[in-house]
């Protein structure tokens, strides 16, 4: 059985003293694709921000790759982030520099690889996401789907052990969304990554999820296989699936 590489215990988090998440205890296992889902405002993105250290929890415990995140030193955090890739909802590419530079940033900052090898790695990563031709493009010259793929290339620049993706298919057409899901699946296959995906798009969840964690009003309402969730008689889950015509 694979081991848990992300663990939270009684995690509570929020903004300005208001709780968005309360007593979240979850385990995410190596090489699995875990989807965090729930209706808008249930705390999905807040959980993601806490997991990647962009927000400090109000209380509770977070462990990622064997390191406790709540009291981590900045140096140690930066080292840990070498093993973690994050795909932000809007891509979060630096707009003033071409894709090649965007993808090269983690390689230049975290390694001493010579520039000509970095260039090759960048070309490989862009090719893996189907953007080999867009090496010199600026982010503003790309469509929404291409921008997300470019951001994915940057997120996997260092072959991270864990990839967090915030709404990777939000706002994309079904074909592009499906191809991005397939890309995530093939990256898991090729790089052996663990994926944590935040989304509420069920078509996407069906394609990629090994396991789902359903959040409702800041608490974990369900954790397990998608089929078990769909068979469950929890009213909130039934409403969620019925609303998207999946039975």
């Amino acid at each position, binding site marked *: 059985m694979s081991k848990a590489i992300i663990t939270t215990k009684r995690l509570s988090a929020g903004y300005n003293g208001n709780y968005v998440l309360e007593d979240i205890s979850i385990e995410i296992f190596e090489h699995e694709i875990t989807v965090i889902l729930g209706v808008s405002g249930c705390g999905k993105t807040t959980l993601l921000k806490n997991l990647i250290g962009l927000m400090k929890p109000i209380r509770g415990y977070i462990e990622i790759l064997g390191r406790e995140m709540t009291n981590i030193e900045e140096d140690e955090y930066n080292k840990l982030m070498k093993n973690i890739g994050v795909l932000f909802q809007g891509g979060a590419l630096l*707009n003033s520099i071409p894709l090649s530079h965007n993808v090269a940033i983690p390689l230049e900052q975290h390694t001493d690889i010579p520039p000509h090898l970095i260039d090759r790695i960048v070309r490989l990563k*862009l090719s893996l996401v189907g953007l080999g031709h*867009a090496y*010199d493009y600026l982010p503003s010259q790309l469509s929404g789907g291409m921008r997300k793929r470019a951001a994915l290339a940057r997120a996997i620049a260092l072959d991270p052990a864990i990839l967090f993706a915030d709404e990777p298919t939000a706002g994309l057409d079904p074909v592009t969304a499906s191809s991005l899901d397939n890309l995530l699946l093939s990256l898991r296959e*090729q790089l052996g990554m663990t994926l944590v995906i935040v989304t509420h798009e069920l078509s996407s969840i069906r394609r990629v999820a090994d396991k789902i964690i359903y959040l409702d009003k800041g608490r974990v309402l369900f954790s397990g296989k998608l089929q078990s969730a769909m068979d469950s008689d929890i009213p909130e889950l039934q409403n969620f699936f019925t609303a998207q015509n999946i039975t």
Partner: protein
Amino acid sequence: MSNQTIQPPETLDSDTITHFYDRVRGILRKSSESSELCIDFSNVEYIDSAGVITLEKLRENAAEQGVEVIFRNISPELEKTIQTFSGKIIKSPEKQAKQHPVEYIGESVFKLWFVFRDFMLLLANISYFGVIAFFRPKLRRKGEVIRQANFIGVTAVPIIVLVNFLIGLILTLQVGLQMRPYGAEIFIAQLITFAMIAELGPLLTAIMVAGRSGSSIAAEIGAMHVSEEIDALRSMGIDPVPYLIIPKLFAILISMPLLAAVATFVGIFGGAVIGFINFQIDFNAFYNEATFALRYYEIMTAFVKSIVFATIIIVVASYYGLHVEGGPEGVGRSTTRSVVVAIFLVIVADSILGLLFYL
């Protein structure tokens, strides 16, 4: 023909490849043609995409020197990873050949012409809607003229007062010191009054407003353009010029002459203060002398200049706001350009008007 064997580290990833790459390159430099270099993977437990890329690159380097690289004892897992990442790079299209200087000059001239044409079209558009919207208030955003006049005019008063007071003070001091040997200090009152009303008051105000409000207007319209708010207005059948720009035009046309008047007054007052302190000219004497220079002609000059400068600032800021390219960083670029171009055009217009009024 000589053969060498090299063992990579246990983990061949982004942390270790540089050392390994340098080591193999060192060996390759010393290798003779038609030799073999064997890379023994028996100790290697993990390889990532950076490791595969390095092996690919080393193979190419070796081939250039006529050295054959052989991989030995590769486990099936490593073989799979190498297969996954080998030969996957898709070449980007060749970059366009460098432009000929004549092409570059031609393109620049055309670009400049297009900028001028679009600028004049916007000016015509603003002028047209400026008149139309005056009689049809529905065309412009409700309450926006007051809000903008407050932002462009009222909130700018403190900085305008401070800057012009200091300019008036220093200018009077320096001119007074030059006049003192001739016993002509009393004339500094006329000089500073004339300088402030006909030139420095409107000009300094315009520069301050271009930097403060012009940049803000360009950034606001630019950000709206980037976030498709302008397109949203157009899609609702609302022309962005009367809706967004005309209230700002009215506000700046009201504010600029008033700000210029304030600037002129405090500049002259600054001169009176230093005249009193340093040149023993009392305020009554200064006032009497100053009124000699205070003619209707100069007041009209200052008013016309303020109106022209205000129009330049609003048209330039709107132009650069509406022509933002390249997302949020483009907003920053356009804002900077709008300030630089507006100040430049204000100075050019000031020179032309100065020549027209006084030549």
